[in-house]
């Protein structure tokens, strides 16, 4: 399934080429609808939307360097009750696709009847930084990409993106490839599955590829991995140990926005919102008595540690928890640091493969001999 085709970039720039490609899926009747980020009229944000009229594609902007929310959750919302009856195209960034794979394993989404279109992700800004960015440029997507083409990575990009080792989507039927391409001339359309391959055929695209891509990907991944290690070092310095960790969590107001923004926190009702955490007055006063004082609301650290416990094995590092935090707690940094270790322990890469079992649903008889003697 290595077949790929070149999509020419014309006057509309890369965005134009992508829109044209998405439009062609309708023309060839390959999809009935498409979940894709659309530009809002205000111009300073994009949101995922289900497009059923190809006319609306002129607002489609999957290249806008901003990810207000993780679309995996939207795919989940659409497909959780029953798989899509119509053929739905879905344009996803790599971290969105990886989150989607995890959600499928958790029975929170179905890939049935979906055409998964991944798109290379050079990185995204926070919503507010994006708002400032669009003020300065004419076409945010094209402008961003041309900068990217020059090899300049904006230090304003979200930290999660700067350390992301997965700029290229996996497991999608098709990949819109940007890395290693001469974006003034062409972008790549790569098949990731047999279905994707068929579509390239049906679109009548000429097969072709580029040699520069692999090296470009490798370079980017290694740069990011290096940055990731530096960040880990920093987090270890800043947030390790009870005192420092509590300092990092000092501004937490138990709003649980991080949980709401997390594409993987799938619980209908969070454990921490359940009746288990409704205590009698005597309990609160008792705890206060024991320590002299009691932070309210209670269980700040317990919440974060438990969320780590539940989710860190599947964390794809999209970083939206940090974005959602009203008080700038680096939740994602902590998740990445811990996740890196836990995931390695179980040789588990979230979102790598639908067939990899979730580590907590299985076990090996011979393992972890250091736990329990």
């Amino acid at each position, binding site marked *: 399934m290595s077949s790929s085709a070149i999509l020419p970039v014309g006057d509309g720039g890369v965005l134009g080429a992508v829109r044209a490609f998405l439009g062609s899926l309708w023309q060839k009747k390959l999809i009935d609808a498409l979940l894709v980020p659309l530009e809002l009229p205000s111009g300073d944000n994009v949101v995922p939307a289900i497009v059923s009229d190809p006319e609306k594609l002129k607002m489609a902007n999957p290249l806008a360097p901003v990810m207000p929310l993780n679309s995996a959750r939207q795919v989940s919302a659409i497909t959780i009750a029953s798989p899509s009856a119509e053929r739905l195209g879905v344009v996803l960034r790599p971290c969105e696709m990886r989150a989607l794979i995890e959600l499928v394993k958790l029975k929170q989404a179905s890939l049935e009847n979906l055409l998964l279109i991944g798109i290379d992700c050079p990185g995204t800004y926070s919503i507010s930084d994006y708002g400032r960015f669009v003020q300065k440029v004419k076409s945010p997507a094209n402008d961003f990409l041309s900068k990217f083409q020059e090899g300049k990575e904006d230090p304003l990009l979200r930290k999660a993106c700067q350390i992301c080792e997965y700029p290229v989507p996996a497991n999608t039927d098709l990949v819109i490839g940007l890395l290693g391409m001469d974006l003034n001339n062409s972008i790549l359309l790569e098949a990731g599955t047999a279905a994707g391959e068929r579509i390239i055929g049906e679109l009548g695209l000429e097969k072709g590829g580029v040699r520069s891509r692999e090296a470009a990907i490798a370079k980017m991944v290694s740069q990011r991995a290096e940055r990731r290690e530096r960040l880990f070092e920093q987090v270890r310095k800043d947030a390790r140990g009870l005192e420092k960790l509590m300092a990092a969590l000092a501004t937490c107001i138990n709003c649980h926005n991080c949980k709401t923004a997390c594409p993987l926190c799938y619980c209908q*009702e969070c454990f921490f919102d*359940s009746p288990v955490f409704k205590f009698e007055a005597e309990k609160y006063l008792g705890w206060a008595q024991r320590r002299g004082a009691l932070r309210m609301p209670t269980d700040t650290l317990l919440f974060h540690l438990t969320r780590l416990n539940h989710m860190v094995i599947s964390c794809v590092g999209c970083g939206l928890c940090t974005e959602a935090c009203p008080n700038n707690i680096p939740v994602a940094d902590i998740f990445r640091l811990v996740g890196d270790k836990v995931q390695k322990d179980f040789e588990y890469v979230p979102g790598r493969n639908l067939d990899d079992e979730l580590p907590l649903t299985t076990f090996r008889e011979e393992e972890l001999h250091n736990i329990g003697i």
Partner: protein
Amino acid sequence: MVKLNSVLVIGAGAGGIKASLDLAEAGFKVYLCDRSPAIGGALIRMDRWFPDNHCGLCQMLPAFSTDDSSRFCLRRGLIHPDIELMPLTEVKEVAGQAGDFRIGVTSRATGVTPELCIGCGLCAGVCPVETAREFNEGLAPRKAIYPPHPGVLPYVYTIDWDSCTKCGACVAKCPTQAIRLKEGEVIRQLRVGAVILATGFEEFDPVLATQYGYQRYPNVITGIELERILSPSGLTGGELLRLSDNRAPGSIAFLQCVGSRDSRKDYCSSTCCMFALKEATLLKQANPQVDIHIFFMDIRAFGKGYYRYYEQARDELGVKFTRSRVPVIREDPPTRNLVLTTIEENGALAKRQFELVVLSVGQTPAPGFQELCQVLGVEVNKWGFCRSELFSPVATTREGIYVCGSASAPKDIADTLVEAGAAADQASGWLARRRVPPTPPEEAMESDAEEAPRLGVLLCDCGQEITSVLDLEEIAEFSRQLPDVAWVARVPYLCYTDAWQRPAKELRKHKVNRLVIGACSRYFNTRLGEIGLNSSAVQKVNLREHIAWVHGDNPKVATEKAKSLLAMAIELARAPEPEPASPVNVHPRALVIGGGLAGLTAALSLARHGIEVHLVEKSAGLGGNLKQICYTLEGDDPQALRENIIARVKTDRLIQVALETELMEVGGYAGNFEVSLKGKESLLHSLEVGAIIVASGGEEYRPTEYLYGQNKNIITQKELEGKLFSAKLDPRNISSVVMIQCVGSREKERPYCSRICCSQALKNALRLKEGNPDIEVTVLYRDMTSYGFQEEYYTRAREKGMTFVRYEPESKPEVRPEGERLVVEVAEPVLGGRLILEPDLVILSPAIIPPENTPLAWTLGVGLNEDGFFQEAEVKFRPVDFLTEGIYVCGLAHSPRGMGESITQAQAAAQKAVSLLTREQLVSGIAVSETIQRQCSQCELCITVCSYTARMKDVESGEVVVRGALCRGCGACVVACPSGAAKLRGFKDRQVFSLIDAAF
């Protein structure tokens, strides 16, 4: 005649316990007697078993109505309302007949009144007599008054009259006047419908093998003694030490067949190879540096998974094996090491020195067994074991009396437990089936749930056992201050018969609806009725074993601990009581898959118990492999058996046979399966059944080796048997045959022993010899596996002049045609040369292989083992069950086995199914899980982690629901669920939080 509901099981070892539990679970009343003071027999002196090195004893506890029996490790005891344990009891007299036996038993007094004994041990402290301790094989001393084994429940002492001097010191010391130094007997008459003989075996006394110096040389020990040395509850606390000098031995030799396979005991004890392998494996795993050498004649690793175990010991762990008899052992006096003289296979004598020698002693009938059999009126065979027939392996010569385990022939636990199930099946045929009444949801419970909790706290002084360390008054005062506590009281001895009368009154007066007991490890559940509370309304704190007895030197902190534990228990007791889950109905109907010997036998057993049976067979006829078995080694007539059971199946009103029919789909769960069947001509039709028995059989491997199929004179054993039987082949026209064993078995792609091929070869060889004494029969083998009483035929074959030549798997025999003749060439290990034979016929003994079982296993949702046979729930303790309740396995579908063994297993599987199907309803235990739908995201993690398929997604509602009857309350789902939607009744997160909070 009104049928009785009760049964007597004689012998409380592995087989007796298993049969009793099976019968009690099925709703019968069991008297379980044993000559010894405690249950467990040989079983509880071992910690782990082959072939998985695990302990799985507790797997024997009932799978349904789990709350009925005690729910703790069986090593500690067995408490079931329908099993009456009768220790120190012997059967003296048997009158009546099957269905109505009147049995006189005498029970010796233990000297200690169990209701009075508090287990304080003061008596043993003053007892002047020291004697050898049975539990540790006499390796460590005990007093004449002693607890039968550590950890036994209730923890009560007993007197060994043989060593007791009746000095009276204990009587004077006993704080509860529990001791009566009067040997007495209580005679009782039992009326039972059937009897199961499960007396097990006695180890061969190695003193009789004088050449080995057992007892003369301290470093010559038996396998079971080694087991006790290696056990954490044994005398060295699990450390490998020689008894002569408390030093770890660097080299150990195992001698096989001590007291087996010789002229006096011409049978194989069937288990000693595996037992030695297990010891060697455990030793090597714990002490890799120890040099271990096993001296043997044949390695008989014929059970499921056993050959792999052997290979692992040999190839991965480096246990060394030498094929040699050891005629004599001498001690090297200064070192107390042992010098073994061995006769190697080539006849050479060698001397080798070891620091420890382990004798693998065989099994012999239990002492007094002959007399017991006389009392019971059942015959023994010439080896002194209970006589049974090949086709009715658990029947004795007296109707209504059944036998299981080593009482009828030496065997291991796995085979014993299968027989125990079969014996339970056969015995229950004589009994009035008591339908297990669905436990009515106790009214008290429902009203309790609404009532505000009012707690009572009952603290036991245990004489001074608790009060000498703990300040119970302070603890009582502390308890009074805790929320919802309405009443606190102390009693001197809570275990006394009349101890509960006063509290019961007080409890009522104070309207107490929950109780916290602070006492000891005793099992009080059976007494809760006296105070009108059920077990879910009661919490226990073990003030004695968990505090007073272990923190004697720190009373202050110990009292603090006691307070914490009481506060914790009170928090648990305060929680609202769970509402009982609703029971589900059972379809009293079974599906049997497979119309071979196992399937037919199972169907007949089911029908005998009034169960409607649907038997489906893939092929066009009944009988399976049995069709091709013409005679047996022991002289039985398989074809008569075949005709008989097919006729009985065909005429049984309750059995419907569907030929050329296959199982297509299975839905539902134990008691409530919906299965879809498809006949060759018919449409898919569905059926509601409560249980499924898998008896889909196995088949003979078609050899690709030794030119099979290319030469008409190279045939399989089965083909030879057919030809001999139909007289197509006249032995008088043959002058020589060569038989080749292990064709396709014990190979890389099939690393298991097919179990029956050696006896098949012996059977056909003897038949040939019978027809023509001059035939030269040469058997090329790897290990002759004529286990149990088959050994006799191996001996007979050699006496008749048959030649047995061993070959190594690396240098297999070569078969080639030379002109008209066949030539077989093989390396001869004894003389070291090459043997060249020119037989008329070459007979191959092919493996038993599973058919392609994957589709069936997938349909049933059950597993297969690495070899493609069905995988039972637990290799020893749940041998016919699957992890999915309601589905059972027997016959070749499980593993290669002989006819008798298939029959036994089919009966055992039927017993399980009958036990399930004769319930009208399945009732959940108290602590089963449930789903809070509001919190559930249907991620199904709980379904994935459930070992018992107790959780499923309801197709219609889409909700994740719990099949309460299948839930064992392990709590795996609770932990798997991130949102807290999966809960355990009686142990919810909220309660656990409160409980944890109370710890500080």
